[in-house]
């Protein structure tokens, strides 16, 4: 299945782009996509604890199952206001 991955703020800068599409096996989780990303960009390891995950616009835990066409966002702590 294919999942759209969005990266914001510091995460976007480390990854070098705001958006990418990833292929992963059925039964893949949000945490799995994140782990793959950390493997590719080890600098993300530093901010792993504070990163929040959202699936289709709603916060989820690492264990959240993904489905084809999902939008998965990796977000640092918010700074609006």
């Amino acid at each position, binding site marked *: 299945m294919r999942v759209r991955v*969005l990266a914001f703020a510091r995460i976007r800068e480390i990854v070098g782009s705001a958006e990418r599409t990833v292929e992963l096996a059925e039964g893949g989780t949000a945490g799995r996509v994140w782990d793959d990303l950390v493997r590719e960009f080890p600098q993300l390891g530093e901010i792993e604890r504070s990163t929040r995950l959202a699936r289709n616009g709603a916060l989820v835990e690492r264990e959240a199952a993904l489905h084809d066409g999902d939008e998965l*966002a990796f*977000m*640092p*702590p*918010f*700074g*609006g*206001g």
Partner: protein
Amino acid sequence: MKYEITREPLDLEPLIEAVRSDACGAIVAFLGVVRELGDGDQPVDGLSYEAYPEMALPEMRAIGAEASRKFGEARVAIVHRIGDLRLGEASVAVAVAAPHRGVAFDACEYAMDELKARVSIWKKEHFRSGEARWRPNAAPGV
């Protein structure tokens, strides 16, 4: 009432117009403004904001609806600016109308507290020194 994420300079008037009603005797408005000493007390030249609007806008609406429910009959509007902002420019504007002023103040303050904690918007401080740093909001109550 009115919830937006925009790249344009913020204007309070249309927000106030959006919330006013014959039943409301009090209007409270908040403007968050880029200040010289950012949260980190290093001189700041400007800020840049980035949003995940598909998630931020529904959350802004949810906060407005909660404020309205918690603080009876408050009418709420929230607009956040993104992009590059210079010193003195407003990043966020909130307007609340309510029958009485206590409720209007409470609802406006609630909306700002919740916005900082829950809305998917990020801020980068650009220091006069040329350095820059993403600045998360302090945890609630800090």
